[in-house]
């Protein structure tokens, strides 16, 4: 957010037009753009969410791979992850939810949590398992993925706004 503000401010400063063209248009367009970007990022949206369900997801861990690599659930779902390891000891830590479980070959791990935040969250191996361990990563997508939608909308609006602000006929 603050980055966007700084970016717009720098743009206004850097592209100050010569006196003849120094009208209020750039500031109005820039302010409007900023307002729209903020709305896109922050405004509450009336989106209907599917009724919460209990979901059980089986994930197989091997060096250096989670299978499936991407898991999709809905906000409000109670998610139970059964982690099975097929080679060495692996862990599974979900970013943002701070939950963790560990699995050894033949001894699966279980992690249960309520997916109460929408967005995409990486899950990663929590036990050092080899050279590529820091990059043993999967993705949990909690729908509706408003974080991504808002970011995309804000990016497009910011682009249109900058073009409108600095456009010359």
């Amino acid at each position, binding site marked *: 957010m603050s980055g966007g503000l700084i970016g717009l401010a720098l743009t206004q400063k*850097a592209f100050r037009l010569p006196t003849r063209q120094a009208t209020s248009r750039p500031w109005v367009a820039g302010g409007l753009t900023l307002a729209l970007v903020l709305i896109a990022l922050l405004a509450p949206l009336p989106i209907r969410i599917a009724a919460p369900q209990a979901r059980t997801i089986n994930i197989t861990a091997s060096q250096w791979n989670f299978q499936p690599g991407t898991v999709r659930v809905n906000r409000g779902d109670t998610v139970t992850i059964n982690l099975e390891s097929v080679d060495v000891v692996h862990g599974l830590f979900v970013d943002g939810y701070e939950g963790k479980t560990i699995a050894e070959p033949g001894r699966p791990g279980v992690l249960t949590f309520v997916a109460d935040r929408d967005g995409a969250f990486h899950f990663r191996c929590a036990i050092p398992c080899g050279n590529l361990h820091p*990059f043993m990563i999967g993705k949990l997508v909690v729908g509706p993925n408003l974080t991504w939608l808002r970011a995309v909308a804000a990016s*497009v609006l910011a682009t249109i706004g900058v073009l409108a602000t600095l456009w010359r006929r």
Partner: protein
Amino acid sequence: MESSFDSTSASVGNGPIARQTVMRATIDLLPDGAAPIVLPPAASGRGFPVSDVPAVKWLLKGRWLQWGITVLTLAVFLVVILTGLFGTPAGNHNFGIIYVWLVWWAVLKLFLIPVFGRFWCSVCPIPAPGDWLQRRRMIVPQPGGKLYTYAKTWFRKTIRPGTRPWPKFLRNIWAQNFGFLAIAIFSALILTSPLVTALTLILFIVVSLVISLLFERKSFCRYLCPIGGFVGVYGQVAPLAVRVKDPAVCATHTQKNCYTGSDLGYGCPYFNLPMKLETNTLCSLCGECLRTCDRNNVAFFVRMPGTDLLNTHGRRLDEAFNGLMMLAAAFVYSVVLIGPDGWLKMTARAVGTPAWFVYAAALLVFCVVIVPGLFWLCVRLGRFLSGEESHTGRVLALRAKTDSLFAGYAAALVPLGLAIWIAFTLSFTLTNISYAWPALSDPFGWGWNLFGTAGMGWTPYLSGVVSYLQIPVLIAGLVAAVALTLRTAHQHGQRSAAALPVSLFCVLAVVALLTLYMA
């Protein structure tokens, strides 16, 4: 050392003063009512001369600070090599891997480049031994800033001080670009193997040492170092810069101590003539020119971030390619290292296998052909949308045949590329930085506990907020990039519509990265 100066031997950087003179001349040719030309920043204010503050000046003119930091980084560098060679092969327990590819990389991308530009290059340990051998001094400079190299003897050339025997065809950053790509195809192995990291750094230091013995100044840093290339290009975003206070003073000063050196210091290690500096690309902020200038006409300026990018004329293709290549590489790394596909990571690390050759070829084609090709198409489409060039545009086009529109537009990718690299770095730094504590106490993984932190476990910091940090960074980079595309169009006499394809390229790049990370 001779005190005479041959201006033709000095670097012109990427924006000589002569160009400004020509620009001013072309303004006179413009008809009434034509769009005004925005002069490069050198014509306007340079910002606040922070080195004129007495305490700061004392610190920067002295050699101890820079020397002290360099010795410190060299000590860490030696530990990195030793732990790489003799320590545990488990990367997340090895000091070398953690402190090079996690700590140093994060500090470089998140802090040093955005704030201090290329400052890292002035305290980098890799060229330090070669520098000291070349200077035959460690701290106090040689009289006249004299350097000792074998180029004169070996190449049987009469070389005046300050000139370069470095091959002309290599006086650019193409070698740095391809050097980076060469490392990129091995990156999954280098990033995760302490031994390979150590061998890579040893290779760097040996090459740097040999180059220093043969060629004057920091030829390795300026022309060969794969890191220096992109650090310089992205350093244009930084608010800190070394510039002359008044070019007129330099114009009447025939000694040019800043380039030839003096008893107070060495000539610019990067072959720059400070009066011609318009960007940070080739300046490491080492402060030699501040020390040698006897007119007190050089200063460290604090100015608006990105000021270097406001002039899109006279941009170089090698630097444009660096911006495109780095952008493409950030995508490859995001997909391979941060993505959920384990087979891709294993393929990238299985160096020498048939699958790896396919991966390496795909990486090279993506970075060298596809992304630059798409960008070139956008620039061409922009020319089409712009329609017939305005009178201003024709006048400007006559000004310099080598003034590449492609390279001008590529300058817009500098803030965007840096934002994308910051977003990429954020994606793994906060979650993995806690490996730094045990590695500090047990650098070799031998069971030591030097500082009592060996038992600290892996703890991801702020793992839930990474996305919320990445989004504003990417939007800020996008806003700056789109603004620069419009500026490029206007400065090159095109209509605003010409900026649309490149703007679309930029927004698609951001949306693609957001999708990779957040969808």
